């Protein structure tokens, strides 16, 4: 539905976007992330047929953005970063104008406008001039405008900025619904929670170039490494560390008085063993859970300058020494233990 191939845009000597390629299929949402000035807006403008690429090409539903700009514009909905409403108009007049511009028949656009105004809680305020709207209301009005012609493809630039939590959820739900309706959506946002919640694919752009792309999970794995787990114990960890051998199974990353974190590639095999050994040694476990890793961490690692963690590498190494004695138990032995651990877990659960 959306296809960008080697899109490049230069302004004089400045290259705003360089060799950007991606595709978004119907029913999918791609989040385009990046700092201000990273090239998101220029990329979007090329896709919406308002800027011509210097090199490369883009197709929207099969239409080339340079050769068939009018066809492209007819089938896209574009929510710009700033709502840019006509302040002296009322929302119904505004939607009627854009409905007409987008070839929506008069009898349909009135009903559709009413439906969406009700959906986004703007029906009651329709008599106000848009200049009197709050920022959130303006953003919702602009979103309705972008949807008035039921576009197959949507470009949403910061759709929930300036909205209260209730409105933001309303808009996120609406985007989810649009996705269900098989529309292809590109979401430019700085709200990483939103991107994580809505996007099927994430593309991070920096200085006009794509630095990484993939699903949320792929990105986390690529950049943050293997998943981390935390174990919370009832008793505090003894000063000389846990009297069990763990280092051959896991990599300890952090610890506290009654908890420790570790990473492992094979959680489904290793976690039961850990649990078993802890229980065998008389440690009571409150929880064993995956450490939440946000898209923000991924983003900061790629696009920003992440703050250093309080734990330095030295501290992590020390923790390894303290918490688990180094051991070179063979993998065979672990495999033998595995079945036993599983059985014990079942017993604990019972």
């Amino acid at each position, binding site marked *: 539905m959306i296809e960008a191939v080697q899109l490049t845009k230069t302004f004089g000597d400045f290259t705003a976007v360089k060799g950007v390629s991606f595709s978004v299929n119907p029913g999918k949402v791609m989040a385009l992330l990046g700092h201000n000035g990273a090239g998101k807006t220029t990329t979007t403008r090329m896709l919406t047929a308002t800027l011509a690429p*210097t*090199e490369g090409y883009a197709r929207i539903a099969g239409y080339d953005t340079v050769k068939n700009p009018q066809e492209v514009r007819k089938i896209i909905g574009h929510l*710009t970063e700033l709502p*840019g409403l006509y302040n002296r108009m009322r929302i119904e007049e505004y939607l009627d*104008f854009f409905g007409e511009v987008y070839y929506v028949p008069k009898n349909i656009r009135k009903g559709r406008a009413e439906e969406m105004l009700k959906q986004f809680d703007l029906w009651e305020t329709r008599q106000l001039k848009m200049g009197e709207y709050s920022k959130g209301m303006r953003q919702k009005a602009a979103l309705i405008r972008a949807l008035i012609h039921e576009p197959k493809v949507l470009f949403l630039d910061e759709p929930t900025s300036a909205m209260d939590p209730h409105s933001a959820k309303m808009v996120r739900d609406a985007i989810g619904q649009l996705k269900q309706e098989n529309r292809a959506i590109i979401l430019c946002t700085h709200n990483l929670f939103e991107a994580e919640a809505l996007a099927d694919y994430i593309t991070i752009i920096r200085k006009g170039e794509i630095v990484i792309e993939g699903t949320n999970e792929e990105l986390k794995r690529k950049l943050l490494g293997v998943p981390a787990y935390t174990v919370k114990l009832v008793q505090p960890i003894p000063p000389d560390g846990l009297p069990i051998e763990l280092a051959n199974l896991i990599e300890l990353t952090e610890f506290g008085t009654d908890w420790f974190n570790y990473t492992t590639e094979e959680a489904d095999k290793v976690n039961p063993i850990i649990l078993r050994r802890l229980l065998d040694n008389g440690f009571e476990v409150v929880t064993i859970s995956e450490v939440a890793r946000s898209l923000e961490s991924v983003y900061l690692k790629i696009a920003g300058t992440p703050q250093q963690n309080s734990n330095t590498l030295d501290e992590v190494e020390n923790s390894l020494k303290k918490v688990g004695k180094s051991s070179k138990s063979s993998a065979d032995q672990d495999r033998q233990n595995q079945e036993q651990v599983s059985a014990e877990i079942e017993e604990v659960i019972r």
Partner: protein
Amino acid sequence: MSKNLTLRSNIIGGQKSFSLKRAFIVARRELRDGLRDWRIMAPIISLTFIVPLLVVLGIRMGSGFLSRLEPGTFEGRVLPFATLAIGFFPMSFSLVIALEAFVGEKERNSLETLLSAPLTDSELFTGKFLAAVIPTILSSIYGTMVFVIGILITGGPLPAEPIAIGFFMLLGAAEALVMVAAAVIVSSQSTSVRAANLLASFVIVPMAIVVQIEAIVVLTGQTNGLFFILVGLMIIFIILLRTGVRVFNREEILSREGGDGLKFRQILGNIGRMFARTPEETIDNRKTNLRKFSPWRLYRHDIPQIIKLNRFAILTVTTALLLAIFIGWWFTTLPIVKDFTKDLQQQYKQQVVGPQSQACDGDTLARSGITWQFIFMNNTRAVLVGSVLAFLTLGVGGILLVMVAVGPIGAIGSFLSQVGVNVFLLIIGLVLPHGIIELPAVVFATAAALQVATCFILPPKKMSIGRSLQFSLVNYIKLLALIIPMLFVAAIIEANITPLIGCALIRGGGL
């Protein structure tokens, strides 16, 4: 980048379709929005209804004084002039609406939404244009009607013949069309409303001159002259409308950022790149120049391309040049001029081309001090001054200068033919040897200057006016690499060879 990706044209294509109905969608919204703004409504109401009535009141109150004017002056001059002026007043707010058209929307952040909508460039431009011109024309017509009715109600005569009143309304409409079209172009090419307002002087000053000419025409009773002004305004309007659509570029509008300051570094960078590229590459807005700049490329590719690009200007200048020769010839054949030059003809016949001619005495030329250096400097200076004059006068000054310089050739030819000189041989002997190089050089230079001066009328497709000006200036400078050597060679021939041929013809009695 893969090899099969072609270099893209920087132009969004497929926008040729135009629907007036869709232009009216834009216009209707603009009108609805604009007419809710008291800052626009106040001058409309005031200039349409209040000011005409105040003028009526003023005229009635001053009737005592006006009755002392020469008979017929009040009815025949003052009232028609007042009618004409009333129709012009609403033009002032037309600029406010038109100058806001694009740049105002850009400042309010609503432009991108409109530009990404399925409206063609012509529909957008026309819609904005109509939104500004419709209230202006209506206001001009209503204002005139209010004034006429006001005068009649207060017992005065009809301010002008009904047909003249209709004509004044047409003239007001033409003024509105020109001013609004120009202002919408300014708006589409400006970076801010402030810049647009400053640039509006390019609209206001010429129109003020037109209105003063109209006033003189009406006050002197030569109202037929208004017809020519109307035709002129309509031609300018058509040119402006065409220019407006041509230079309208949504990409330029969106990407033009960064305030109103003159960016000399950027301009110099652009000019440098234009020098490095061939004209074709600049028009296509190619990123890199495919052929490296070299004197060979300049003469082999750039200059032929520039001459091709300037072909219409070259044709215009050549026509003007031939016209000047014809006028010069015709002027000398007028009986009054013939009578005046009768004695001169006789004297010339004896001293220059007759048997006692001293024109070719050995030291005549040497005494005259006309060396090739003098000719070269003189011609180069004339070409450069003519170019500057052309830049400043939309090309008119440059063309007139060429006509004034070349016209005497026709006049002298005619004069000498009356003396009995063989003009054909005269041209071959005294004009052609150097003229065959010098005249094309002058034509190329004047045409290139004309191109610079009028670059905003027909800029290369989707090139902004600023870039078009830079492009035509670069082309002018590149062309100097041909013009200067041509003038140089022509000067050497003119100083050293032409006199020999001329004298041979004189001595041989060929003339």
